[in-house]
């Protein structure tokens, strides 16, 4: 009894057993369920990616046939997009930290929250079932473009249903966050005193709620066309495949911001903490999240410049695309201004945040290249595009995800990882990442098309460099995971506030008690990032 009494009761040890986890209504446990399932699928996706890079080590067939390669890159895309990156930060860290940062004890609709995790699991099972049933995994690419997706013999229906169910999981998470932010902020926390991570999640949630249904109905049309022959995109019935592309990208472009905005939120948390300085331009950062979400709805056509869409429409979409650069640049400049004259403490989370800025900058600037109508016609469907979106998605969001993991690790598990090993892992990840993807940008400009298991001899050297980069990256990933698991098992106990942060999650114990706070959390005077001992200007 005394042993239990001295041990603090927290959300991790309050109940034991698998049932207390998979049917929990506690947002922290649901966040962890997401974190574990998302990480698992991330590694599945990584393995598929490494296999693709192996195939591309030499021209011609190395380890797989063309069709297998098509299925591998489709599965890689579906898993990475729908099972990893869309739910990554919002569903795991968002679920865990949004209520704590708002100073409340749960999300507004806890049962819905659990339902959305279960939908995620069901969607994941659907996606995996294509490995075994009905013609194998889809070979269409993650975009499922009609009419090929309607005609191919692979199991597109199941993959598409997976994306449909996962979409609803994502909608329910977003819906829950919006309601939570409106209803459960701690007394005194107005919208303009919310942490920036909450702002980012708020903007993200609106995209999830208002854009995801479009992909839902579009994918449903594909399924219905395959199953009942009700053909809406079949040219032999007068259907227009380009309409499919419109519908697909009306969702899938805003979805890019579902992936990027929460990452920006994480960076906006890490940078002030490790500079011990008030964030520069709180409102511009907060509102630019909303601006990105808003503008992001109207730029989808830039994915379709070469599809046969009308020239006038293409010009309009191209112009609108450049608008996205404005709020994005606002964020970057404000982060850099926050670092200026701050008491910078170069810990691993900050390194990941800086890597985010570096990678996202390359991703963003190459984005302007492909957003420009005239240039895009040349680099469309080349490795330039592959390089571009991996810089944004993996180099950006992926690194922010790792940064969040290192930043909040002590809070979530109450333990600390080995900092030296973390530095090494970060270095390997950063170097490996750039060796892996930078050559792709060059290959793309040289004209290497994407989605082929083969290539011309002149692309050999750069492809080999890229593949070697993938090995370095994998070593970095394994080291990072090993370090975190070791930290969880044997690491020293972490203090309540190891980084001297002042957002509300640092006011409670590590790990947090069952209901997050044992006493009323206190808002910092004068704003969420008002560091008391920060140097005055």
């Amino acid at each position, binding site marked *: 009894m005394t042993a239990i009494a001295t041990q603090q009761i927290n959300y991790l040890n309050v109940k034991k057993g698998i049932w207390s986890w998979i049917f929990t209504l506690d947002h922290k446990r649901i966040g962890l369920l997401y974190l574990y399932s998302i990480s698992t699928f991330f590694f599945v996706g990584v393995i598929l990616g490494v296999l693709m890079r192996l195939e591309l080590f030499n021209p011609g067939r190395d380890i797989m046939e063309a069709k297998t390669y098509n299925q591998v890159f489709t599965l890689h895309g579906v898993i990475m997009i729908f099972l990893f990156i869309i739910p990554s930060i919002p569903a795991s860290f968002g679920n865990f930290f949004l209520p704590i940062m708002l100073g409340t004890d749960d999300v507004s609709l806890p049962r*819905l929250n659990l339902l959305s995790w279960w939908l995620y699991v069901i969607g994941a099972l659907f996606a995996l079932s294509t490995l075994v049933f009905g013609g194998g995994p889809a070979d269409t690419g993650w975009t499922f473009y009609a009419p090929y997706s309607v005609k191919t013999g692979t199991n597109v229906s199941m993959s598409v249903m997976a994306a449909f169910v996962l979409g609803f999981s994502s909608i329910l998470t977003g819906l829950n966050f919006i309601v939570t932010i409106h209803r459960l902020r*701690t007394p005194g926390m107005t919208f303009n005193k919310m942490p920036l991570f909450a702002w980012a999640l708020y903007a993200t949630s609106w995209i999830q709620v208002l854009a995801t249904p479009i992909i839902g*109905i579009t994918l449903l049309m594909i399924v219905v066309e395959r199953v009942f022959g009700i053909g809406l995109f079949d040219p032999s019935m*007068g259907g227009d495949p380009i309409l499919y592309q419109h519908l697909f990208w009306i969702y899938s472009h805003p979805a890019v911001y579902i992936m990027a905005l929460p990452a920006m939120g994480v960076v906006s948390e890490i940078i002030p903490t490790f500079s011990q300085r008030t964030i520069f331009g709180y409102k511009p950062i907060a509102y630019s999240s909303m601006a990105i979400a808003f503008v992001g709805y109207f730029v989808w056509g830039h994915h379709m410049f070469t599809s046969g869409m009308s020239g006038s429409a293409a010009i309009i979409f191209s112009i609108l695309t450049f608008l996205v650069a404005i709020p994005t640049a606002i964020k970057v400049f404000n982060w850099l201004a926050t670092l200026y004259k701050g008491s910078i403490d170069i810990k691993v989370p900050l390194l990941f945040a800086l890597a985010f800025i570096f990678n996202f900058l390359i991703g963003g600037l190459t984005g302007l290249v492909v957003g420009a109508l005239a240039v895009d016609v040349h680099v469309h469907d080349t490795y330039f595009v592959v390089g571009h979106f991996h810089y944004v998605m993996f180099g950006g969001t992926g690194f922010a995800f790792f940064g969040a993991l290192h930043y909040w690790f002590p809070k979530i598990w109450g333990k600390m990882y080995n900092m030296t090993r973390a530095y090494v892992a970060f270095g390997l990840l950063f170097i490996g990442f750039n060796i892996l993807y930078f050559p792709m940008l060059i290959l793309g400009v040289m004209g290497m098309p994407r989605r082929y298991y083969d290539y011309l001899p002149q692309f050999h050297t750069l492809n080999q460099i890229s593949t070697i980069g993938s090995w370095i990256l994998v070593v970095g990933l394994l080291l990072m995971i090993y370090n975190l698991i070791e930290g969880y098992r044997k690491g020293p106990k972490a203090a309540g506030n190891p980084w001297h942060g002042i957002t509300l999650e640092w006011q409670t114990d590590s790990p947090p008690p069952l209901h997050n706070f044992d006493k009323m959390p206190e808002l910092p005077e004068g704003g969420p990032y008002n560091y008391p001992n920060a140097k005055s200007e």
Partner: protein
Amino acid sequence: MNHHFTLPNSGHNYDAKASKMGMWLFLYTELILFGGLFLVYMVYRSLNQDAFLLASFNLNVWMGTANTIVLLTSSMTVAMAISALQKGDSKKSIFLLWMTILAALFFLVVKYFEWSAKFEHGLFPGMDHFNQLPNGEKLYFNLYFFMTGLHGLHVIVGGIFIVIVVFKIKSGKVNKDRYQLLENSGLYWHLVDLIWIYLFPLFYLIH
């Protein structure tokens, strides 16, 4: 140790406003879900105006009108059921909800007859008559079956929700002071009505 501290803004309190807001957000997703189909309809109709016109003559305007009136009436009964429960008259509320369910069933039966008539005439995708139609008319029927089918599915789901609410009123779990579940089911039912309000002219009345 066991002093029970509860935050004033706890997520574990019953919060009718939160669940109402959640419902509205969900309705937005439903609107946009159907919106995607309306978008497809708009494009294909603009490309095949005459074919859509010809094909629409295969539908029976009077059946469509009857169904519209039935759905509007059911919307009224469910709205009245909310007023009744707010006033504390749960018996009247339950009666009005049963009327709503009856209307839902009537709607589905009419739809069933309409669809079977199309099947008899071979107008379902893949059937003989359908295959001989020009492309534009094929698209019309594809959209017709998809949109009214998905709408019918929503009618069924909405009906099930209302049945559940009826039993919850009977057991007292939904009552005068705690009626958000009824209001949410009502909102969902109105959405079903709202979508039909557009489906009806687009398919039945465009001649």
